[in-house]
C-alpha cells in the first residue's frame, strides 16, 4: 500500500508539472490531429467493407507514436534535471516510480485515444461501433494503452538511467510493444465487426497487461540500479546446485 500511495504522489507531481507547461498534452494533441487528418484524407475513398481493416491500424498507430513521444519526454525531463537520482536515494519504493510513470503515460495516451476515436467515428462509417458501444470502446483503449505503457515505461526508464539516447527508445520500444499492439488491433477489429470474440480478445489483452506489469515491476529496480552482488552470487550458486 505504501508503494501505491507513493506512486500516486509521484503521478500527481508529474501531472502538476505537466499542467504548468502542457508540453506533452499539446504535443500529443497536435500529433494525434495531424495523424488523423492525414489518414482520413488518405483512406477517405476506402469502401465501407474495407474500413474495419484500416481503422484499428490508424488508432493504434497513433498510440504507438504518441506513446514513444510521451515516454521519451517523461524520462528526458527526469534526466535533464537529474531528479530520477533524487527519487532513487529517497525512501521511495522503486516500483512506485514505475507505476507513477506508467500511470501518467496512460493518462496522456487516453487523451490521444479520445481525439483519435472521436475523429475516426466522424470520418469513417465503419467506426460507428465506437460510439454505439462506448463502454467496450473505453475498456479496449484502456487495456491497449495500459499494455503499451507497462512495457514501454520499463525500457524508457532503463535508457534514462543509462544516459541512453532517445532514438534507442524507439528502436527498442516498437518491437517490444508489438505483441500488445497486435492484441489491441485484433480486439478493435472484432469490436468494429461485432464479433462475439471481442471479449475473448479483451481478456487476452488484460492478461498481457498483467504480465507486462508484473515483469515491469519486477525488473524496474535492477534496470535502474543494477543487481546487488549478493543476489548475483546467490543466483550463480543456485545454478551450480542445479
Amino acid at each position: 500500500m505504501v508503494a501505491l500511495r507513493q506512486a500516486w504522489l509521484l503521478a500527481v507531481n508529474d501531472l502538476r508539472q505537466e499542467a504548468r507547461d502542457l508540453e506533452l498534452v499539446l504535443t500529443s494533441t497536435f500529433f494525434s490531429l495531424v495523424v488523423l487528418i492525414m489518414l482520413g484524407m488518405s483512406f477517405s475513398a476506402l469502401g465501407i467493407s474495407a474500413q474495419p481493416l484500416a481503422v484499428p491500424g490508424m488508432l493504434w498507430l497513433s498510440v504507438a507514436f504518441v506513446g514513444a513521444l510521451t515516454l521519451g519526454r517523461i524520462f528526458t525531463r527526469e534526466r535533464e534535471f537529474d531528479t530520477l537520482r533524487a527519487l532513487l536515494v529517497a525512501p521511495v519504493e522503486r516500483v512506485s516510480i514505475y507505476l507513477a510513470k506508467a500511470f501518467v503515460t496512460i493518462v496522456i495516451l487516453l487523451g490521444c485515444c479520445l481525439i483519435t476515436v472521436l475523429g475516426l467515428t466522424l470520418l469513417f462509417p465503419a467506426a460507428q461501433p465506437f460510439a454505439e458501444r462506448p463502454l467496450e470502446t473505453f475498456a479496449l483503449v484502456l487495456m491497449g494503452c495500459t499494455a503499451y505503457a507497462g512495457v514501454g515505461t520499463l525500457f524508457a526508464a532503463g535508457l534514462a538511467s543509462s544516459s541512453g539516447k532517445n532514438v534507442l527508445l524507439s528502436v527498442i520500444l516498437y518491437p517490444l510493444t508489438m505483441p500488445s499492439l497486435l492484441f489491441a488491433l485484433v480486439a478493435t477489429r472484432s469490436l468494429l465487426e461485432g464479433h462475439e470474440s471481442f471479449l475473448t480478445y479483451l481478456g487476452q489483452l488484460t492478461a498481457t497487461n498483467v504480465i507486462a506489469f508484473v515483469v515491469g515491476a519486477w525488473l524496474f529496480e535492477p534496470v535502474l540500479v543494477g543487481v546487488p552482488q549478493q543476489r548475483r552470487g546467490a543466483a550463480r550458486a543456485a545454478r551450480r546446485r542445479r
Partner: protein
Amino acid sequence: MSEAALLELRGIGKHFGRLAVLRGLDLDLHSGEIVGLIGANGAGKSTLLSIIAGLMPPSRGQRTFAGSEGVGRDERARFAVVSHTAQTYPRLTALENLELFAKLRAQAGGHNEALRPTLDRLGLGYAADRQAGTFSRGMLQRLALARALLGRPEMLLLDEPFTALDRPGRTLLATVLAQERDRGAAILLISHDLEALVSVADRVVLLEGGVIAGDVARAPGGDTFAERVRSLAGRMPAVGAEAHA
C-alpha cells in the same frame, strides 16, 4: 573512535568492464564526524558515493550502514544525498519541491522537519513560493541541502556542495554541517576545495588507485591539520597523470 561505525565499507571494488575504479577500499564513518574525501578527477569519488547511496552495486566487498547490508526503503529513510547537480523539479516552487519529498518520506513512516523553517535555515525563506527553475545555482544547491535535511538524516553524503556557493553561502553551509555533526549525523563530504574541507572536516581521506591511500584526522587542540591535509592533497597525481597510472 571507539564506538561502532555507522557506515562500514570493507573491500569495496568496482569495475566497469575492464576498468577497475575501486580496488578493495575500506572506510569507516562514525556518527558525529565529518569526513572529507579528496582525490583526483576520475579517482572514483562519485562512484564510491553512488555505491554508498545504493545507486550502484559494488562489484565486490561489503557495505554496511547501521548494521544492515541492504539499501532498502527503510535504510534510505535514514540517510540523505546532496549531489553536485541540484536534482530539483524546475516547474515546482521551492516549497513544493520539499513538500513532495516530505510526503513521500511520511508515507514511508519517516520523520519530517517543518518545511518553511527548513527553507529559512538555508536562507531560502524569501523564495519559498518561487519556481525552482528561476533559482541561481547557489540557491538550487541550498534547496537540495534543505531537502536532504528534511528527514534529520543519520548520514549525509555530499558531492561538491561548495561548488556553486558564494562566500556567505559557504559560511552558511559550513555552519549547517557543523550543526548536523553536533546533532550526531555522520557526514561524508567530497570536495576539491581544501580550504572549505579544512574548515569543516574532522578527518580527510585521500582516494587514490582505488583505495584509501591516506587518512588525516584533526587532533584535539592540534593546529597542523590544515598543513597535513595540504600535504595529503599534494600526493594526488598531476592532471593527466592518472590516465597513465
